[in-house]
């Protein structure tokens, strides 16, 4: 961390914000004790990948987009194959659709558990890192690692490789598991279900700042299930659209201080991710997850970003239960995929990445080559909302020494689990205030 003094401003620069995946920077300008500007800068490789995809055959897309993000490869694959299937008028239903939900469960379990235990819990318990926390609470960290591993096992089985799935493709899968292969995961998932309930009880006991904000929540909202792969996009303000209409309502704009585009809904910031999903889809939780949520004593909608860790924990429990449900009724389908006939066209899809809706649009020519690709990741959708939260939070930390002020900002940013891993290395924090 460095500090410099100019004539009007004091500058605080923190070279790296720990436990935020990716590269970015935060600049806060304060004048006469009032926050002037909050600028979150994110370097965003999905944009590079859009160009990288052009000219590729549609069959390569799933494999390429899985490498955009180390944390949510399934989400990138799912949005891609659904968009491409829309072009080719392919419908993936029945058991194959269940398997896609199942592998998505694996990703949510793994990604959410990583965030709850390794990235955000240290903030609440006063540790600089999960490693420091592990020294004092080895049994808790070990529990988190084991839940995470149960999610990883699902992804490994259905994806072929652990964090790098290779078998999701347009039309279905390159292979499907045997019944006994899925059953082999059941026992560990039953353990994980108990551990997930313990997790909820654990995080509810944390000390939460009173910081309710006025959000517009946006999530998929299928009629009869918690959202993963499809469903209309709805908002807490009454929006209800097909994902194909995304770009008619959500627009991206370039801001001078970041190479990431800011996405807004009708010009206003909005919130995607676990809080939004839970608030908009609570009726689709399993009875056990509903009960666990009720036992927290919290009433929905949750409007405190720090409660995201609770929403995430409830979703871990839901994902484990949904995985068990799918495994218990699984019969291998006759074929791992449905036939695909290539045709030219444009297709759009949204699926629920762990951090919120992930939009893909592709234009394909009659040879099946990608002519245009557009990817709107959840972090760029939350970016404006994170800035708004920081603006509201800054007065609480302005009187603190620089280091603590920076830590307070980091905690707000981490509530969103910003996957700037879609964005690589580190986040610099720069607070400018009058001397």
């Amino acid at each position, binding site marked *: 961390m460095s500090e410099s003094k100019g004539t009007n401003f004091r500058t605080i620069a923190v070279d790296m914000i720990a436990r935020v995946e990716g590269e970015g920077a935060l600049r806060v300008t304060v004048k006469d004790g009032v926050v002037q500007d909050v600028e979150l800068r994110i370097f965003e490789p999905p944009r590079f990948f859009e160009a990288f995809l052009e000219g590729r055959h549609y069959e390569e897309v799933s494999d390429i987009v899985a490498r955009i993000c180390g944390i949510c490869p399934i989400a990138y694959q799912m949005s891609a194959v659904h968009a491409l299937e829309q072009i080719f008028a392919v419908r993936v239903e029945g058991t194959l659709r269940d398997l896609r939900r199942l592998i998505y469960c694996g990703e949510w379990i793994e990604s959410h558990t990583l965030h709850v235990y390794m990235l955000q819990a240290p903030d609440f318990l006063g540790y600089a890192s999960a490693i420091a926390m592990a020294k004092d609470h*080895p049994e808790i960290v070990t529990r988190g690692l084991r839940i*995470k591993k149960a999610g990883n096992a699902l992804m490994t089985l259905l994806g072929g490789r652990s964090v790098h799935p290779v078998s999701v493709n347009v039309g279905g899968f390159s292979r499907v598991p045997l019944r006994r292969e899925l059953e082999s995961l059941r026992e560990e998932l039953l353990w994980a279900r108990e551990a997930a309930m313990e997790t909820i009880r654990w995080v509810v006991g944390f000390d939460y700042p009173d910081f309710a904000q006025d959000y517009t929540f946006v999530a998929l909202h299928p009629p009869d299930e918690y959202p993963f792969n499809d469903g209309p996009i709805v908002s807490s303000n009454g929006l209800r659209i097909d994902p194909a209409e995304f770009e008619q309502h959500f627009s991206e704009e370039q801001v001078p201080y970041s190479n990431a585009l800011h996405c807004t809904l009708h010009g206003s910031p909005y919130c995607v991710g676990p809080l939004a999903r839970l608030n908009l889809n609570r009726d689709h939780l399993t009875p056990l997850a509903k009960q666990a949520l009720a036992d927290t004593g919290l009433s929905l909608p949750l409007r405190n970003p720090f409660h995201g860790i609770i929403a995430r924990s409830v979703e871990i429990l839901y994902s484990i239960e949904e995985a068990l449900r799918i495994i218990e009724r699984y019969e291998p389908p006759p074929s791992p995929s449905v036939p695909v006939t290539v045709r030219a066209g444009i297709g759009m899809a949204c699926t629920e990445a762990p951090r919120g809706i992930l939009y893909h649009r592709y234009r394909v020519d009659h040879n099946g080559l990608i002519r245009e690709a557009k990817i709107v990741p959840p972090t760029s959708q939350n970016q404006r909302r994170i800035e708004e939260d920081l603006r509201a939070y800054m007065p609480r930390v302005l009187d603190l020494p620089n280091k603590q002020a920076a830590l307070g900002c980091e905690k707000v940013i981490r509530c969103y689990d910003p996957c700037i891993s879609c964005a690589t290395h580190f986040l610099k924090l720069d607070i400018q205030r009058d001397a």
Partner: protein
Amino acid sequence: MTNTGERHPIRIIGVGNLFRADDAVGLLAAQRLKDLVKDRAEVIEAELAGLNVLDLMSGTPAVILIDAARSGQPSGTIHRLDASADPISGDLFPHSTHVLNAVDAIEMGRALGLLPSRVILYGVEVGDTTAGTALSPAVADALDQVVEKVLRELEGLACTSGS
């Protein structure tokens, strides 16, 4: 993912992202080593592995890890760190495209008492990590060198383990 289903006393783990240019270097090293080490070690290509490296290290007494590093030194610089005795500074391996990185996995393993008795980490300084499948020239040279260094390391480890 591994070259054989057997368990070896020495495991080589290469971490990287195949489509993020220089970031792939550890993974590419593992791919090359798979053919070169034959039955002398188990080789794991750990794409985007992050904290999962902790699981990948379990059950073996000696591990050689190869990953991308970024500490401000010229790209292509190769660092060798012996993680067996002392903690590794995270400064060399900032939070990477592989979520929590290999150093986090090592230090988590140390905190929980799960670390293999020998852990050697090779870090290759990277330049471009945006999108693409080509290594920059300096990192391509370093790939050749790190493969050689790991082969020599393997001989040393095999001697000390008496196999």
